[in-house]
């Protein structure tokens, strides 16, 4: 075998075997790296979970119409005449009863959060049979659908998890209006589960919206093809309207929590600097602790690169162990944990932390970065250590 390799293996083995001599320092380095990784992963998993929850709501074959310049449904309004014009747009799928299109309203109501017992915003969506059918993942878990023309509503499973008082059969008061919960639905974990649904005409009435709506969802003939609709809108000055696929709409909304990921990276980088300082200290101590052994090996004829490699490997091993421990910690503490936060429309979005493989890779990269930097300089010192110290008496 290549002498460099056999030397390096031997030195690595000796370094790892000597770790018990520096047990506490080494453990401290592992734990410091682990904490950094856990915190990084918590933020990344949160941002990812939010993104997945919103992205999952959007379909590629649904065109979403909002008033020009309104980034979200909440601040959009479309008049009856605009709705009529949209119905005539090209590229919209039809069935026996005409174009497949859902007029929707989106108003904000209050709910009491289970965790904090404080009021938070919940969206109450006005929709219709057609609108419900457009959500492919829609499933009625309990009860039945609301009847048109009544103050009945169905409740998303996420709302049920995070808010008090929305159980099946309950009567709920929003302002002067009373509503009955007649069903509970799921949409496969996406953002629609954080909503209350009822008949849009009833909401038009109770909230004095006349015949206006806030958004239109229309089924496309061809998935992803909204070019001709865009063209149609551009050519009609009465339609000061934005259109994009529902998938694009939600994917943009999902990015709104990206600051979480950035914040997490900044926080964990700052903490990584602290961990790095500790790790450097650990590794310099390791070199000092092994100085006699390093010098003896060098006297025998071992190369200085083997001293370098051995030290670097030791720090990478410790930080990698920290990284794995941190990932495990994040997995046990956060993965799948359900939480809610303000989404793009100032309403609560219920979502779960998503600790995916690529995030764990990011965490490991952070840990190995700590190991690489904290190992490099001490390894350099180990490689530069004068050989003649082996003869020196202690």
């Amino acid at each position, binding site marked *: 075998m290549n002498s460099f390799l056999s030397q390096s293996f031997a030195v690595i083995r000796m370094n790892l075997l000597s770790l018990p001599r520096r047990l506490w320092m080494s453990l401290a380095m592992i734990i410091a790296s682990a904490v950094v990784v856990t915190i990084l992963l918590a933020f990344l998993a949160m941002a990812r979970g939010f993104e997945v929850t919103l992205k999952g709501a959007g379909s590629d074959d649904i065109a979403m119409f909002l008033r020009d310049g309104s980034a979200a449904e909440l601040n959009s309004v479309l008049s009856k005449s605009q709705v009529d014009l949209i119905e005539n747009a090209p590229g919209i799928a039809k069935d026996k009863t005409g174009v497949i299109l859902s007029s929707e309203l989106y108003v904000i109501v209050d709910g009491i959060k289970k965790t904090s017992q404080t009021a938070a915003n919940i969206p109450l969506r006005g929709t219709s049979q057609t609108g419900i059918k457009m959500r492919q993942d829609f499933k009625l878990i309990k009860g039945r659908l609301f009847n048109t023309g009544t103050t009945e509503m169905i409740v998303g499973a996420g709302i049920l998890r995070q808010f008090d008082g929305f159980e099946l059969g309950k009567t709920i008061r929003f302002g002067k209006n009373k509503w009955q919960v007649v069903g509970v639905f799921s949409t496969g974990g996406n953002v629609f589960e954080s909503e209350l649904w009822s008949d849009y005409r009833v909401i038009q009435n109770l909230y004095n919206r006349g015949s206006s709506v806030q958004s239109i969802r229309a089924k496309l003939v061809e998935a992803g093809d909204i070019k001709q609709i865009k063209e149609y809108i551009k050519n009609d000055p009465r339609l000061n309207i934005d259109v994009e696929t529902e998938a694009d709409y939600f994917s943009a909304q999902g990015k709104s929590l990206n600051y979480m990921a950035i914040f997490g990276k900044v926080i964990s980088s700052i903490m990584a600097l602290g961990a790095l300082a500790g790790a450097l200290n650990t590794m310099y101590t390791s070199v000092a602790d092994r100085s006699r052994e390093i010098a003896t090996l060098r*006297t*025998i*004829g*071992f190369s200085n690169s083997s001293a370098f490699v051995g030290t670097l490997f030791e720090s990478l091993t410790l930080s990698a162990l920290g990284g794995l421990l941190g990932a495990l910690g994040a997995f046990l503490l956060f993965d799948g944990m359900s939480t809610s936060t303000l989404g793009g429309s100032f309403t609560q979005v219920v979502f779960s932390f998503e600790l995916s493989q690529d995030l764990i890779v990011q965490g490991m990269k952070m840990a190995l970065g700590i190991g690489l930097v904290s190992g490099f300089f001490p390894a350099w010192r180990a490689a530069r250590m004068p050989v003649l110290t082996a*003869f020196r008496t202690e």
Partner: protein
Amino acid sequence: MSEKNIFKLTNLVKRFTKGKETLSIFEDLNLSIKEGDFVAIMGPSGSGKTTLLNMLGGVDQPTSGEVEFDGKGIEKLSENQLAKWRASNVGFIFQFYNLMPMLNAHRNVELPLLLTQLKSKERSQRVETALELVGLKDRAKHMPGELSGGQQQRVAIARAVVSDPKLLLCDEPTGDLDRQTADEILEMLQLLNREFGKTIIMVTHDPSAAKFANRVLHLDKGKFVEKELSL
């Protein structure tokens, strides 16, 4: 013992500079050592014995002058060239044994062989032979901490000879041992010199240790005072 010189030191100068102060250890030192000789270097503490041994072993370099080994100057070799030179020509024996505490006797002795192209099986055979030579065949699996001082030094001797270098450099090899154990170690060195033809250069401050050598050099104030021993 052959007539050939293994070492020839010419006009050797060694000074240590610390800040503005310069400490002169040797000024113009000359010395020849025959191949196959067993030389003891004696002298008071601080007289430069270890420094000299370091230069002979290529772990330290002279300020000026030549260190010829087998007719070739080694004082100008680079650090990595010296490491290779040491690996194939020199076995080191230290006062405090310098064994790797986390490795058993077998693995300690094997270390110099990791610098060679030998296969694992061949290495094992050589290690066993070396351990047998120093009488520790049955201690191969013992950790240094489980061995007495004399046994540890014997493991160190096995490590020094396992790759069959022609030169052994020993710095106070018995400095930490009792009389009887010291004598056993010295007899072993004598055997290596007589039976295996190893050239041995041994630093010691112990006159009875020096008696095992063929030639005793007294180092004082940077100069040699030679006394031949009658054996």
